[in-house]
């Protein structure tokens, strides 16, 4: 607890070791408080279950084929919505970034629509695509689209114009300009857009699954909740967080120079 106690002090150097120590200290602190609250009897029944119960549930989940099947459904839905959202998003982003007229006409629309809650369109998606994975994929793709389109358009505009002139001076054709200059120059902003898009795609897919669905992790969370299996619920949530964080870290890593 020493590190947490001296948070305001500037004398601690931000070395990787100290950073790790601080993180561990905070984690241990949170776990201790949790376990303390759980045992204090202040809360009704299993609202805050013991850590032991949660980890036991997590162990059971990890060997439960139902969990893996639902995980697979959610992953397929997320990847599919990301692929569709990225396909449309990158295309629209390039068009907006390349054309000043279209950019002025449509970028504010994309910009101001992007933070609106897509989940309100869920009923429409259900009508169009049914209660199965397709409606979640459609909604996820829609939410990923905005982040990716905006990020691609911004990336397009920040390309150093001299690189375009070099391409022209070597008489690159349209495809060579696109694949050898524009896209590599936009790699980092596009990957950042995909990372943001994936975040919203996961959120939207899970949200859709909790609303109306018959499979997927979101559906499973609601199932566990209706059974009031609190250790199972927390175990499931932790696994979802860990998975989403890991995928995010992976994309973030590839977006670095």
């Amino acid at each position, binding site marked *: 607890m020493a590190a947490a106690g001296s948070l305001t002090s500037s004398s601690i150097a931000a070395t990787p070791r100290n950073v790790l120590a601080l993180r561990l200290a905070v984690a241990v602190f949170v776990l201790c408080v949790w376990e303390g609250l759980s045992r204090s009897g202040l809360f009704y029944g299993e609202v805050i279950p013991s850590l032991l119960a949660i980890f036991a549930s997590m162990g059971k989940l990890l060997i439960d084929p139902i969990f893996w099947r639902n995980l697979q459904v959610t992953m397929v839905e997320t990847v599919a919505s990301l692929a569709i959202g990225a396909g449309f998003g990158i295309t629209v982003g390039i068009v907006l970034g390349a054309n000043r007229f279209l950019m002025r006409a449509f970028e504010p629309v994309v910009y101001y629509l992007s933070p609106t809650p897509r989940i309100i369109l869920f009923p429409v998606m259900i009508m169009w695509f049914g209660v199965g994975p397709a409606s979640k994929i459609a909604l996820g793709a829609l939410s990923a689209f905005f982040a990716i389109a905006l990020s691609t358009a911004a990336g397009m505009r920040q390309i*150093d114009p*001299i*690189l375009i*002139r*070099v391409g*022209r*001076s*070597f*008489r*690159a054709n349209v495809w*060579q300009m696109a694949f*050898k*200059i524009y896209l*590599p*120059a936009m*790699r980092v902003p596009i990957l950042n857009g995909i990372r943001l898009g994936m975040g919203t795609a996961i959120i939207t897919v899970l949200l859709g699954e909790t609303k109306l669905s018959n499979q997927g992790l979101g559906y499973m969370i609601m199932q566990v909740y209706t059974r009031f299996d609190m250790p199972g619920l927390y175990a499931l949530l932790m696994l979802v967080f860990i998975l989403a964080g890991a995928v995010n870290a992976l994309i973030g890593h590839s977006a670095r120079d």
Partner: protein
Amino acid sequence: MSISEKPPLAQEPALVVDDVVKRFGRGTEIVTAVDHVSFSVQQGEFVSVIGPSGCGKSTLFNIIGGLLSEYEGAVKIGEERISAPHPAVGMVFQEESTFPWRTVIDNVAFPLELQGVAKSERMDRAHHFIDMVGLASFEKAFPSQLSGGMKQRVSIARTLVSQPKILLMDEPFAALDEQTRLLLGDKITQIQQELNQTTLLITHNLTEAVQLSDRIVVMTYRPGQVKRIVDINLPRPRTSDVVGSDAFGHYVAEIWNDLREEASRGMADSESAASRRAAHG
């Protein structure tokens, strides 16, 4: 764009700039950047165009490079009037222009990649020109790991690899310090003599122009016209040692005489523009 079928004669100039005029703007705001400029570059010759800022040098560079397609008069290679980037002209830009995501060798191989040259041949040829600019041990490095002078050498190798008939450079050393500039000048002279490379250099640097050139085209301040063309009869092969010779000093003094007037007109112009801005602000 029609490609001339007649092979050029040996005596025919590599490049002819014939009465080129370029105006920018419209109505009362028209600025004549290049005003009836004519000169030619012979095969194997090193010509510099020198002038103060605002003499239309960069406009001329873009016209000859084919990046500015609308102009009056003609820039000709053989019988062909340039109105788009021409395969015979290889451009080196003033700005740092290497691709940051490519290694040195992949940067240099870029034009060959566009032409669809097979990978092994591409690497061989890129290697040859990297070696020529003295960066053999940096082939696998990324531009971010190189100094400014090294990056410009990568750009020069990248342009040379496509073996252009005419090497067209726009102040490639403008951002470098004087010592690096002199040493790179040696490198350029050496390469030019090795390849018998026809070269047109756009510059505002007097010593650089005299050090490297066979002929210097002196431009006037706005509108950019040819004030004089000076033959530089310094011995070849040449090195930067020439900078210390009497003849060198003589050429520099002579051209400076022409240039001073133009440069001071340019300075007066930008000062009066600045005082107008200050008065309005």
